[in-house]
């Protein structure tokens, strides 16, 4: 008596089924890389609090302005190229010659590193209501790029590595030595003056 074997299940349709699932996932998912420029907004001053201008020394502020025609001005100079703006920002934040026109430095004791003259400079970015968002992000990007350059330089000369390769503690030190002082200032109409 021949034993009857159970027939094998046909696997031919497996490909069709998985194709169907593949198409489903292609339709319902997105692959947007979630990248962008992180910022922290300053808290809103409460209503009863007097709006008082912080007494910041004039030399410690770099005004970067974008007008309604997407023209850019930084520290009283008209900006024609990205490299020019970056150069101005780097010079402003490092103040290599200790000039009295550029920001003052304050000796601060950084934990785990020692004393370091931390720049007190603040970059204030102002824009007009009709500047384009594209230009705004472009300028923000240049400011971050300049800051990252300075941090990389500092990290290389002190730890021998670029900022991104440092350990968390070392990054903390670098962040304290070269703080991110890009201010999202109160909105102003730059053009109306």
């Amino acid at each position, binding site marked *: 008596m021949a034993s009857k074997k159970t027939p094998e299940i046909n696997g031919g349709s497996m490909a069709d*089924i998985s194709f169907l699932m593949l198409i489903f996932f292609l339709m319902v*998912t997105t692959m947007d890389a979630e990248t962008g420029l992180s910022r922290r907004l300053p808290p809103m001053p409460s209503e009863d609090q007097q709006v008082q201008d912080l007494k910041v020394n004039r030399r410690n502020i770099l005004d970067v302005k974008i007008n309604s025609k997407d023209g850019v001005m930084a520290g009283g100079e008209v900006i024609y190229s990205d490299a020019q703006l970056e150069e101005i920002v780097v010079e402003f934040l490092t103040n290599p010659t200790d000039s009295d026109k550029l920001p003052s430095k304050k000796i601060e004791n950084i934990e785990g590193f020692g004393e370091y003259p931390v720049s007190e400079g603040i970059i204030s970015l102002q824009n007009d209501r009709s500047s384009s968002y594209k230009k705004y992000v472009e300028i923000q990007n240049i400011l971050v790029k300049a800051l990252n350059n300075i941090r990389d330089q500092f990290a290389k000369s002190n730890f021998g590595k670029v900022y991104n390769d440092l350990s968390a503690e070392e990054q903390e030190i670098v962040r304290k030595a070269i703080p991110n002082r890009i201010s999202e200032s109160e909105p102003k109409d730059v053009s109306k003056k």
Partner: protein
Amino acid sequence: MAKFLKKGGKETPGISTASLPDIVFMILMFFMVSTSMRQTDRMVNVKLPDATEVTKLERKDLSSYIYIGSPTSQYQSQFGTDSRIQLNDSFKTVEDIRHFVAAEREALSEADREFMTISLKIDEGTYMGIVTDVKQELRRCSALKIMYAARKKVVTNY
């Protein structure tokens, strides 16, 4: 001669498709891992600006999205082509952001609330006026961690 008259000759064997399911499953797995579920339907056109110094959003589950841009063609007859704000699945005004942020914050667990990030997906052609209004409103409801969504630009060195 019968040796030479063999009929049919040697046929090329068909390519085995037995590994096809495996290959397709592999592609499927790749897509499942590398993509995320679409949460809302876009009602506005958003072409993100380029930037080189972008960082990754650390916690996707803690982020809420605000889209600003010109309405897509199917909504243009109703809402025009001016930049509009989209929250969840509808067009909203600047005043509605307050409720939106409150609702999003409520949805998170208490420990995570301070890490909530608002990702601003804004079309690059938008005027800064509306962006400034949104930023002021976010400050007012103290959602201070924001991210200007931007695409990573590949730097080419010539």
